[in-house]
């Protein structure tokens, strides 16, 4: 499978008469963009903003992030089975706006999985989105059935973000990219003997899929991950929009759609392919609730890895707490069949740092990269501009906040748990945990 991604680096983002990209400047026709947002009649109020790294702006409650792209060859929509007809992903050509993202923020209502982004100040570095130029959609919907629910599907807003990303990205269609990245990974039996001599590795992904009710979980080609068994995928499929983030996981552990599109771990293993490793592919597993479901998925992952001839497996869990059981189980089953594992996960050690870092532990899990601490206590100073509604952090059951955590002056205390996609379990974390 061969995927080309043509990159266009955004040096400046501005509202203008026409949605267009030229010489590093992304111009967006605000009215047209808002019309795309309002294609969904459930969106009852919408406004767009542009924020840049260093701006003293706080975004909350942030629900989702999507990279602005255009499928140029080998497909029509960015998210097959979600924003368009079902179609294979992973082949052809994409054009992508780099260093930029669409971010969607609730105008009023937050939910369990929502988070906070600071574009400037001491916490800018806590999320990778603090370093991007962001097109921020702040909107409200008529989804009253879930307005006061802690768990929200956030469907209208998440889909609006995807439509916006497609709309803005479409301005790249006929342009020539500044640079092109090629992701070319042939079928297993068509690889050269030199490559086949290298240790084969798989990347096992455990996206968040624990809600029994549909509409909250990670989607794979539009299919709810709760209703699937582990399956084999080509890494290009993920880079090309086969996976769309859900609306359930406490947000520091979440993998946003932007992060699926830009999977740092896939890119890194791809870069090693043919040099030090033979990248066999992705095993797309899931996270479950019942013990037998956890065990079934773990066994199937191990069987698949073993039968693909994997010597090693990278395993990442999109979650903490209960999902640690699935994570450890997969590591244990893989090690049992002789596949050497490296796990990528965050920890939850409590505010005093003294609690067991994962709910489940096992001696087989002897190689783990730690991406951060869910329960790290943070004290944020007031921010001159807030997009969204900061009070949501305290009022609406956001996983990092609690009643009274937002002060009158706009400062707040929270746990890292509510920092938007802060732990980068997709591989994009510059944090670790240490003994103190």
């Amino acid at each position, binding site marked *: 499978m061969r995927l080309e991604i043509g990159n266009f680096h955004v040096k400046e983002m501005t509202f203008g008469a026409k949605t267009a990209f030229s010489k590093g400047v992304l111009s967006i026709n605000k009215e047209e963009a808002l019309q795309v947002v309002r294609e969904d009649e459930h969106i009852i109020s919408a406004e767009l903003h542009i924020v840049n790294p260093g701006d003293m702006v706080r975004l909350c409650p942030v629900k989702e992030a999507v990279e602005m792209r255009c499928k140029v060859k080998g497909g029509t929509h960015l998210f097959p089975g979600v924003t368009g007809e079902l179609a294979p992903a992973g082949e052809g050509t994409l054009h992508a706006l780099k260093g930029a993202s669409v971010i969607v923020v609730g105008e009023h209502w937050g939910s369990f999985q929502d988070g906070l982004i600071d574009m400037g100040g001491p916490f800018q570095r806590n999320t990778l989105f603090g370093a991007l130029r962001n097109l921020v959609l702040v909107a409200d919907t008529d989804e009253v059935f879930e307005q006061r629910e802690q768990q929200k599907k956030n469907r209208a807003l998440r889909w609006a973000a995807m439509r916006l990303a497609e709309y803005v990205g479409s301005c790249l269609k006929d342009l020539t990219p500044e640079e092109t990245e090629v992701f070319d990974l042939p079928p297993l039996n068509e690889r050269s003997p030199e490559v086949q001599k290298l240790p084969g590795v798989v990347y096992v992904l455990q996206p968040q899929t624990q809600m029994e*009710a549909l509409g909250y979980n990670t989607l794979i080609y539009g299919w709810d991950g709760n209703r699937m068994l582990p399956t084999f995928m080509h890494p290009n499929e993920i880079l090309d929009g086969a996976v769309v983030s859900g609306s359930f996981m406490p947000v520091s552990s979440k993998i946003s759609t932007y992060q699926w599109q830009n999977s*740092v771990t896939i890119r890194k*293993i791809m870069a090693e392919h043919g040099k030090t*490793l033979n990248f066999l592919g992705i095993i797309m597993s899931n996270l479950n609730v019942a013990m037998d479901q956890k065990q079934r998925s773990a066994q199937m992952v191990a069987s698949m890895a073993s039968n693909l001839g994997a010597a090693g497996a990278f395993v990442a869990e999109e979650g903490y707490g209960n999902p640690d059981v699935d994570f450890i189980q997969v590591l244990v089953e893989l090690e049992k069949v002789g596949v050497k594992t490296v796990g990528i996960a965050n920890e939850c050690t*409590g505010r005093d740092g*003294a609690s067991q870092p994962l709910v489940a532990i096992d001696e087989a899990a002897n190689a783990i990269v730690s991406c951060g601490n869910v329960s790290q206590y943070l004290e944020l100073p007031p921010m001159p501009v807030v997009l969204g509604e900061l009070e949501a952090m305290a009022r609406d059951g956001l996983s990092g906040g*609690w009643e009274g955590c937002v002060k009158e002056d706009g400062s707040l205390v929270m746990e890292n748990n509510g920092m938007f996609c802060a732990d980068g379990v997709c591989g994009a974390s510059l944090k670790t945990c240490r003994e103190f």
Partner: protein
Amino acid sequence: MKAIAYLNQFFGQVGGEDQADYEPTLHEGTLGASGLLNSLMPHVEVTHTVVCGDNFAASHTEEAIKRILGFLEDKEFDLFFAGPAFMAGRYGNACGAIGKAVKERFGVPVISSMNEENPGVEMYKQALYIFPGGRKATFMKKDLEVMAAFGEKLATGQPLQCASEEGYYVRGIRHEVFLEEPVMAADRAVAMMLKKLKGEPFVSELPIPKMDKVTPAPAIPDLSNMTIALVTSGGIVPSDNPDRIQSASATKWGKYDISELEVFPVPDYKTIHAGYDPEAADTVPDRVVPLDAMRAYEKEGRFKKLYDYYYVTVGTGTTQGEAARMGREIAEDLKKAGVDAVILTAT
């Protein structure tokens, strides 16, 4: 800053093994080893020295702690030093037990030094800053210098680095840090994988801690005289959640009267647990807290009585430390009420 030091009979200049039953005493200023400690710290003054015989501390630990805490009650101090204890087992345990009690009572940092083979390390490294020390008293100056340097660091407010950089034994306290050299998690994972595949040594960023496994209690053969209570981490609360128990990462538990109830009335009770789909639990809360079934068994006389209150917290994301604390508090309350057994339901 002011500090108080703890020494055994030998280093407190009372005498050797024949004085090991020496009862705790408090001395103004320094004495023996605490004098050297004091001279090593320009920003810290050792105002008092506690001396206690190793035998007394080992065989009357509670009494020794009680008396020593009594000595310190009206003293002003910011730091507490204990030892160094080298490889001396009784001395190490005394430094640990007394240091831990001082830390818990007065909230001051406690600094000690012990050889890695001293049993006091395993027992007390979580409670105090214990630095690796020499095997015997010839290391006195060297070990004191390490303790003093850390005391100076605390006194002058220098930022503390992680345990491996400061040098004390790891305490099982983990916090997140941004890497000084920014290396993405994916790069760290690949580097670790390459080492593991080649059979080369590698360092996991999350060392697997020792398991804290609780052995289930043996079955109770005869329930006929038992009062049984219901306890749950499933988040079933009166619908207004009067104690504001958190939906995740809970730090609170509640206790609610069910003496007049046969089943949980809906919608007066519901779950606030954010870690599972609430639909089934909100429809029939008894499926999480089996009040209906317990009432039926109670009527059949399978056991004497269902306790008048049930206890509840939320398990999702709740740290082991908080869970253990809440468990202890609930257990104490149950014991006081004369409850004999508990059915603990989770989700």
